[in-house]
């Protein structure tokens, strides 16, 4: 039995849901960040699957863009988190509310 499009999409949806609830529920900024990446990867998986089953290159082109952007994002995002930790000695989101008060 070979995997069909639906299997890929279900997997992609599961990964996306995993990432989404991670963003919603985790308190650690680093973990939230990783979950964000997981959501991005889930969407790229769906795009690759579409590309494969449609026999076109459109989805693959999207994936290249998403990976490029994600790489840049990771570079900036991690740098911010490191800088944040150096300054505040914490990366827990409930303590990062300087703008609110």
């Amino acid at each position, binding site marked *: 039995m070979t995997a069909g499009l639906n299997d890929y999409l279900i997997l992609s949806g599961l990964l996306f849901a995993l990432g989404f609830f991670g*963003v*919603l*529920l985790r308190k650690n900024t680093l973990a*939230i960040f990783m979950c964000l990446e997981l959501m991005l990867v889930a969407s790229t998986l769906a795009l690759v699957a579409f590309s494969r089953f449609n026999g076109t290159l459109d989805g693959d082109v999207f994936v290249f863009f998403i990976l490029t952007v994600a790489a840049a994002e990771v570079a900036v995002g991690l740098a911010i988190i490191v800088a944040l930790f150096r300054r505040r000695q914490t990366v827990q*989101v*409930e303590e*990062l*509310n300087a*703008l*609110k*008060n």
Partner: protein
Amino acid sequence: MTPVHLALLILLLPLASAAFIALFLRRAGGLASAVSVTACTGLAVAALALAFGGERNFPASWEWLRLGGFSLSLGFKFDDLAALMLVIVGVVGLCVHVFSLGYMHDDGAKARYFGGLSVFMFSMLGIVFADNLFMMFIFWELVGFSSYLLINHYCEKQSAADAAKKAFIVNRVGDFGFLLGIVMCYWLNGTVNLTELAAHHVYSSWVPLLLFCGAVGKSAQLPLQVWLPDAMEGPTPVSALIHAATMVAAGIYMLCRIEPVMTPTALTVIMWTGTATALYAALCAITQRDIKKVLAYSTLSQLGYMVAAFGLGSLPSGQGDHKVLVAAGVGAAMFHLTTHAFFKALMFLGSGSVIYGCHHEQDIFKMGGLKSKVPLTFATFTIGVAAIIGLPFLAGFFSKDAILYLAFANNKAVFALLAFTAVLTALYMVRLWKIVFLGAPRSEEASHAHEGGLSMTVPLVLLAVLSVVGGYGFFFEKLAGSVAHLVPEAGGSDHTVIFVVSLVVMTLGAGAALLFYRAETADSLEQKSPGLFGALSALKESFDAVYNYYVAKIQQRFAILLNFLEQVALAGLIIRGFSGLVGLFGIGARALHVGSLHAYVYWFLIGVVILWAYAAGVF
């Protein structure tokens, strides 16, 4: 010096004097009065030189303002009519200036007073010279302003402040009509230049009627007459100059200026307005006890005469041809304006002399016996009274006869009313004269009355002479040129009728007054017939009562209603409503910022869901 330069000099001399006083002499009353009187002497001399120089109808016009296709020019229209008015304003103005030197000698605000007089002379001369209606309107408002300034001279008195405000506001009502008339005239004819209008204009009764509104305000005709009696709060020389001889006559002068655009309908309205004013004011004058108020109502009555004369139009033979529609009316009105300016200024200055002599006592029942105390004032005042009641061979006799003849020939009803008014005129003037000058002094002030100085007696004598000769043809013709030829003259049997009628009405009125009134401390009419006296007083009060009711009840309530609507609808609903809405939105938006990153993720999620739902066409 060309006539144009002379005219410019006449116009600008009082302005220069006013500006100089306002800028440098505010604290120097003596110097200010000298400057003002010198300027007025100069302008009077120049005015006489210009009027009798023979040069008339010279072109002089300058563009002042251009807005697209609309241009506003300032210019001089100096014809016989203007020359006549110029001489009146110049001569009476000079007399009043000189008289003021004595009358206002001890006043604390002399600089303001004489500056005001100069402003007035400038504005009045502007009306006299104006060659178009816009220019006339500008100076029309300026005389209103200077009148306000001078009525308000004793501004520490509440009554004077109120009177000044009343005069200004009532005049605004009339001037609004005047302005509408000018706009309509421009709209219909494309010009407001008086010469061009005379040559060519569209036939419409609205234009003359709206312009007449201005005259109703300024010349204090019914129903806007209420301001003039109150204006007597001003200094007496001001009453003589502004509220008797010149400014209030400006309305009649303006009517004569716009004579070519008149229509029979408009003339009928004007005629009845004038007649009603003449009769109403004469009735009011009978019950007055303030010497100046009697003269004020007499002025109103005489102004009504002039307006009625204008409205009567030409003699019957000249009808049909529009050119002569009002010719005789102009002649009669201007003739009476001239003689009235002299004898009424004389009587006002005479009353000023009396008031000055009696230490500012104005109640005639507290005077009496002044005949021997102030003999010169008595003599000149007597000439004035004789002139106004139409004693033969004095100025008022000729001009009043001209008007009566015109009424006799044109409209018998008006003739009857004007003749009855003449009876009343003789009655109240002789009453005033008798109570003030005859009998015994009835108060401490009156028994110590004294004549003013030379500056007060010389103007009286000059005006008395003018009140005598002003009515004679040779004099008036010299002054007025072609206007004098318009004065209607009765011939044959009409002449006899008019002569007899005017003699009878004068004798009737004067005789009744001489026999009926006693030079005592109380009004004979009030004692003998309180009912009639009360009715006449009520007549006087009626207009003020109606206006007070209108202002206090109707207009004030309307204003309150408007204020309520403004507060609720405009300020409440629209302004505060919108700001409240925006504020509410702000409060809602602020509530979303809870400070927790997870909440923001939820908002983001909700936003995405809404966006998705919208894109999918759920709503």
